[in-house]
C-alpha cells in the first residue's frame, strides 16, 4: 500500500520540473528585450557604408574639394584563433596566407603582430581597424585575395582630394573625430570624419551626408552567410550635399601666388552680393597635406610652426589696426553728422598737437582740404575732425558723442563678427564709451585719450574680412550683404541679409572721388594704378609694436559700377603703397581683365622681400 503512494511523489517530481521550466521560460521571455539585443549583436555584422562627402565647387563650378576612395582593412581577431583551432582538429579550412598578406600590405611580421595585438586588445570578438587609408590599387589586390585572409574585410571610405591645391584656409580639412567630438555631438561615431576648420567644418553636417549600414548574417563561426533580413533593413548611405561657393578659383590661386613669402591676408568681395571672391591667408599650405596617410605628421608640423602659423586663418582671425584706411569711415561719419562739410579745411603743421602729445603727420605748413585729406592721408585733419566730433555739444557729453560715433562704426561691420560662413571668425575690436572706461582704466576719460582711433590706431582693430567689407560698403554707397562663401547647397540657392549703414548716399561721392585720386599722381599710391580701370583705394600704414609698419590697402573698381572690393593686409610690409596697394590692384586687374598688362608689376610684388627675422613674435 505504501508503494502506491509513490505515484504522487513521482507525479510531484514531474510537475516540479515542468514548473521550474515554465518559470525559467517566463524569466527568459520577460527579459526579452535584453535577449533580442544580444541575439542581434551576435548574429549580425554591421558594415558601415560611408557616404560620399559633398563636393565643394567654386563660382564657375571648378572643383575645390573632391573625394578619393580609400579602404580600411578591418579584422576580427577571434576568427584567426578559430582557424588555428580548426587546423589543430584537422578540419579543412582556408589557412591564412601570411606571406601574401604581408607582401600586399608591405609590412613585416613584427608589424603584423603589433597590429594584431592592438586589435586583440581592443576586442577579440568585434572588428578593429587593422590598417587605415589603404589606397585603391592596394585594396584591389586585397579584395581579390580576401578569401585567403579569413577574419579580415575591407570597408570603403573616401578621403578628401583638393585638386587645385588652393584655399587651404577657406576649405579647412577633415579629420577623424576625437572622443571629445563624440561626447559633444552623439551623431558622430568612432571612425567618422569631421570637418575641422574652414568650410569643411562650418558645413560639416551638410557635407558629410548620412551613413548607411548593411547588415550581414553570420553563422556560428562568424562567417558571412548572407544578408540579414534579405537586406530589407539595410540603409543606403546618403551622399552629402555639394556646396557651390562664390570663390573665383583662378583669382584665389593668383592671390595665393602673389602672397607667397609674405604674411598677411587678402579678401575680395563682390560688393553687390557680398560674395567672397578671394579669401587668402599667407603663409599657406597645400590642403592635400592634410589628407591621407601623412595627415598626422603634416598637421603636427604645421601646428608646430609658431612663427609662420600656417594653419592660422589671418583673413578672419587676425585683428589688425586698420590704419589710415579707417579715415574713409571717419570722413563719412563726420560728414553725416555735419561735424565737417566737404569744404572744411585745416592747417597741418607736422601733426596734431595736443599739449605735449603730437600725432605726427608728414605734411607741414599745408592747408589741407577734405579731398586732399583722403588723397594724401592727413593725420592732422582726422585728429582735428575726431576731436571736434567728440567735443561737439550737439551730441551731449564726450562719451555720448563717442557712442554716437561708435554706433555708426558698428553699422560698418566693426567690432563684431560679420557672420561669414566660416568657423572661428574674430570680431575685431571696437569699444563703446563704457568699454573704453575699462580699457583706459578711467571712468571720466576725455576726448584726447581716444585720439589715435582717429587714424585707425589704438583701441581699434579689424580683420582683413572687415577691411574688405567696408571697402565693399563704400563701393555700394552705403550697404552690404553679409559676406559669405557658399551660394548654393545642393540645388537650393542661399540668400543673405542686407545691411545698410546710416550714412546718406550723397556723402559717399566726395569720399569716393578722393579715393579715386589716391591712385593718381599726387595721391598716396599712384604706382599701383592700372591703366584703363577706375580703381578707388585708400592706403594704410599701421604702426604696430612688433616691427616694421603693416602695409594696408582697401580698394574697389570700377568706380561707378563696382564689381570687386578688396582688402589687403600685409604684415610688416611698410607703407600701404609699398606692397598692399600693388597686390590689391593686381587682383582687381586680374579679376576685371583676366590678364595683367604690365608684367613688371607682378614681378615687383613677387620680388618684394619682407625681412620677418627682425619681427618680434607675438
Amino acid at each position, binding site marked *: 500500500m505504501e508503494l502506491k503512494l509513490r505515484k504522487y511523489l513521482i*507525479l510531484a517530481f514531474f510537475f516540479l520540473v515542468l514548473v521550474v521550466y515554465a518559470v525559467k521560460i517566463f524569466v527568459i*521571455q520577460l527579459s526579452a528585450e535584453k535577449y533580442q539585443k544580444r541575439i542581434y549583436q551576435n548574429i549580425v555584422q554591421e558594415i558601415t557604408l560611408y557616404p560620399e562627402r559633398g563636393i565643394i565647387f567654386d563660382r564657375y563650378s571648378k572643383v575645390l574639394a573632391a573625394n578619393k576612395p580609400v579602404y580600411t582593412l578591418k579584422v576580427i581577431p577571434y576568427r584567426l584563433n578559430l582557424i588555428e583551432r580548426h587546423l589543430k582538429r584537422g578540419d579543412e579550412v582556408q589557412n591564412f596566407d601570411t606571406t601574401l598578406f604581408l607582401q600586399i600590405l608591405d609590412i613585416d611580421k613584427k608589424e603584423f603582430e603589433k597590429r594584431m595585438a592592438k586589435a586583440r586588445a581592443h576586442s577579440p570578438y568585434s572588428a578593429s581597424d587593422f590598417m587605415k587609408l589603404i589606397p585603391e590599387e592596394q585594396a584591389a589586390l586585397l579584395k581579390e585575395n580576401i578569401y585567403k585572409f579569413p577574419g579580415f574585410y575591407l570597408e570603403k571610405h573616401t578621403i578628401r582630394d583638393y585638386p587645385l591645391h588652393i584655399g587651404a584656409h577657406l576649405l579647412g580639412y577633415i579629420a577623424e573625430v576625437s572622443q571629445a567630438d563624440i561626447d559633444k555631438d552623439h551623431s558622430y561615431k568612432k571612425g567618422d570624419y569631421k570637418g575641422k576648420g574652414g568650410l569643411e567644418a562650418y558645413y560639416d553636417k551638410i557635407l558629410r551626408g548620412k551613413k548607411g549600414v548593411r547588415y550581414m548574417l553570420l553563422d556560428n563561426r562568424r562567417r558571412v552567410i548572407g544578408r540579414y533580413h534579405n537586406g530589407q533593413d539595410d540603409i543606403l548611405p546618403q551622399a552629402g550635399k555639394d556646396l557651390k561657393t562664390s570663390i573665383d578659383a583662378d583669382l584665389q590661386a593668383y592671390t595665393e601666388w602673389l602672397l607667397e613669402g609674405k604674411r598677411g591676408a587678402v579678401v575680395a568681395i563682390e560688393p553687390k552680393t557680398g560674395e567672397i571672391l578671394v579669401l587668402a591667408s599667407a603663409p599657406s599650405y597645400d590642403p592635400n597635406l592634410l589628407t591621407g596617410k601623412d595627415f598626422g605628421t603634416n598637421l603636427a608640423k604645421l601646428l608646430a610652426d609658431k612663427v609662420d602659423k600656417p594653419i592660422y586663418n589671418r583673413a578672419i582671425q587676425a585683428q589688425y589696426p586698420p590704419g589710415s584706411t579707417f579715415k574713409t569711415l571717419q570722413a563719412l561719419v563726420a560728414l553725416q553728422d555735419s561735424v565737417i562739410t566737404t569744404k572744411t579745411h585745416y592747417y597741418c603743421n607736422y601733426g596734431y598737437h595736443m599739449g605735449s602729445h603730437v600725432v605726427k603727420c608728414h605734411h607741414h605748413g599745408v592747408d589741407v582740404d577734405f579731398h586732399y585729406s583722403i588723397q594724401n592721408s592727413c593725420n592732422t585733419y582726422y585728429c582735428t575732425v575726431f576731436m571736434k566730433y567728440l567735443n561737439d555739444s550737439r551730441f551731449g557729453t564726450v562719451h555720448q558723442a563717442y557712442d554716437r560715433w561708435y554706433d555708426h562704426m558698428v553699422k560698418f561691420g566693426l567690432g563684431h563678427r560679420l557672420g561669414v560662413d566660416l568657423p572661428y571668425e574674430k570680431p575685431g575690436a571696437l569699444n563703446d564709451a563704457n568699454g573704453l572706461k575699462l580699457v583706459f582704466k578711467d571712468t571720466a576719460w576725455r576726448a584726447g585719450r581716444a585720439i589715435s582711433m582717429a587714424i585707425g590706431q589704438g583701441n581699434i582693430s579689424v580683420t582683413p574680412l572687415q577691411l574688405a567689407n567696408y571697402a565693399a560698403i563704400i563701393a555700394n554707397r552705403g550697404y552690404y550683404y553679409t559676406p559669405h562663401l557658399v551660394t548654393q547647397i545642393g540645388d537650393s540657392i542661399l540668400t543673405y541679409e542686407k545691411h545698410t549703414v546710416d550714412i546718406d548716399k550723397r556723402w559717399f561721392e566726395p569720399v569716393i572721388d578722393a579715393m579715386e585720386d589716391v591712385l593718381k599722381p599726387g595721391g598716396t599710391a599712384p604706382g599701383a594704378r592700372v591703366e584703363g580701370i577706375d580703381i578707388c583705394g585708400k592706403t594704410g600704414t599701421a604702426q604696430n609694436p612688433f616691427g616694421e609698419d603693416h602695409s594696408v590697402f582697401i580698394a574697389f573698381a570700377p568706380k561707378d559700377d563696382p564689381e570687386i572690393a578688396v582688402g589687403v593686409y600685409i604684415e610688416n610690409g611698410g607703407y600701404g603703397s609699398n606692397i598692399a596697394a600693388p597686390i590689391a590692384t593686381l587682383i582687381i586687374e586680374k579679376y576685371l581683365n583676366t590678364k595683367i598688362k604690365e608684367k613688371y608689376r607682378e614681378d615687383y610684388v613677387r620680388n618684394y622681400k619682407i625681412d620677418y627675422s627682425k619681427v618680434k613674435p607675438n
Partner: protein
Amino acid sequence: MIGVFSNKRFDWPLLLIYMLLVTAGWITLFSTTYNPDAESWLSLEHNKQLFFIIISLVVGFMILSLPNSSIFYTLSSLLYLGVLFLVVITAFVGDETNGARAWLDFGFFKLQSSEFLKYATALVFAANLSKATPIEFNSEKLRTFAVSILILLTAILSVILQKDMGTALVFTAFAVPLYREGLPGEIIGFVLLAVAVAFLSLLISSFAILFFMVLFVVLLWVFVTEREFFKRAVWFYFAFILAFYFFKVVFGISISTDYVLISAYVLATLSAVVFGWLRYRASLRSMLLLGMGIVLLGLIKVTPVVYGHLPDHQRERIDVVLGRDIDPRGNAYNVIQSTRAIGSGGFFGKGFMHGPQENKLVPFRQTDFIFCTVGEEWGFVGSLFVLSLFALLLWRIINIAERQKSAFTRIYAYSIAGIIFFHVFANIGSVIKLIPVIGIPLPFFSYGGSAILDFTIMIFTLLRLDMDRNLQYEKIF
C-alpha cells in the same frame, strides 16, 4: 477497428492528449521548416513528417486492433533481442550523423533503431520485473531484479556502442518504474544528490564540500534511525575537523582547506563506522549511508578532473549551463541562440509563421531545438500550453498505470512515463539552458520518423493494454 472505439475500456482522454500533442507538434514543425522556394514538396521536413504521422497512426490502430494483448508480454523478449540485434548491427554498419552511428539506411527511410529499443526495453523490463515486484532484497527476488538491471545495462551499452550518449541517458528514466516498484528512495535520492554534488563541485570546490557536508549530516539525521550512533558520528566530524584545523594553524601545514575538510570527513566516517559497529551494533544500512558520504566527497574531487578530460564540445555544453564565460560563437552557439530565440517571443509570441525561420539561426531547429519555435512564435502562453500538455500526458499515463491489475502493464506505463518525461526534461532543459545539451528529440514535436513512430507505438500499446486492464499477464504465463 471501429470495434476498438466502441470498447468501453478505451481511454479517450489519452488519445485526445496524444492527438493534441501531435497536432501542435506538426504545426510547429510546419512553421519551422516552411519554405516557399523549396524545389519539391517532398523535400520539406513537415511534409515528410505528415507522412510519418499517418504511418504512425496506421500502425497505432493496428496495435489497437490486435485481438490478443498478451503478445506484448509473451513476445517482449523476442522483440527486445531483435531490436538489440538491429542496434548493434547499426553501430557497425549504420550511417553516421552528428557523431553518432545510429541510422540504418533503407533508401527512402532512415531507421533510427535505438528509438525502438526504448519501447522494446520497456516491454521486456516490465515483463521481467513484474515477476519480482515489489522489489525486496532477498535471495529469491534478487535474481529477477538483477536480470531487469541487466536488461537495462545491455540496452545502454548497445546504444553507447552507437556513440549516442543522449539516447543512452534516456535509460536512466527506468529509475521511475524501479522506484514505483519499491527501490529504496535513499538510492534514488543518493543518485540525485550525487549529480547535484558533482555539478556543484564544478562551480566552487570548497563551497560544494561545505554544502555537501551540511546536507549530508541533515540527511543522516533524517534517515539514520539509531540516534545514539548518529550523535557519535556527528561528534566525530566536529572533532576531526577541529583537530585538522588546529594542526593546520599551529604547525602551519600548508594544505588547502579542501583537503583539511575531506581528510577530516573521511577519518570521521571511518571512525564512526568502526566505532558504530563495535559499540552500537549499528545497522548495515546506517553504515552504508555514512559510506556513501565518502563516495559523494570523492565525486567532488573527481568530477573536475573528469570534466577537464571531457571532449571540448561536451565540456562547453556544461560550461553553458554553469554560465561560464564561454565563446558565444563556438559550440555554445546553439543554446545561446535558442534562449534568445525563445526570449524574443515575449509573452504572447510573434505569431504563427513569424519566427525568423528564414534565418535558420538556431541549428537543429527542426529536431532537437524545435521548442525554440514554440517559444518564439507562441510566446510564454504557447510554451505553457505545451508544457501543460506534457504534464497532462504524464498524469494520464500514471493514472492509467495505477488502475492496472497487471504489474506488467503498470511497470510498462511507468517506464514510458519515465521515458517521455526524460525526453521533455532533457530536450526543453537543454534549449532553455537549464541543463547541458543532451541531443534527444522532443516527443511529437521534433522532426524524425523513427521518434514519432516509437512514441506512437508506446502510447497505443498502453491504450491496447489498458483495454485489458483486468488481465494479469504475469499470473497467466
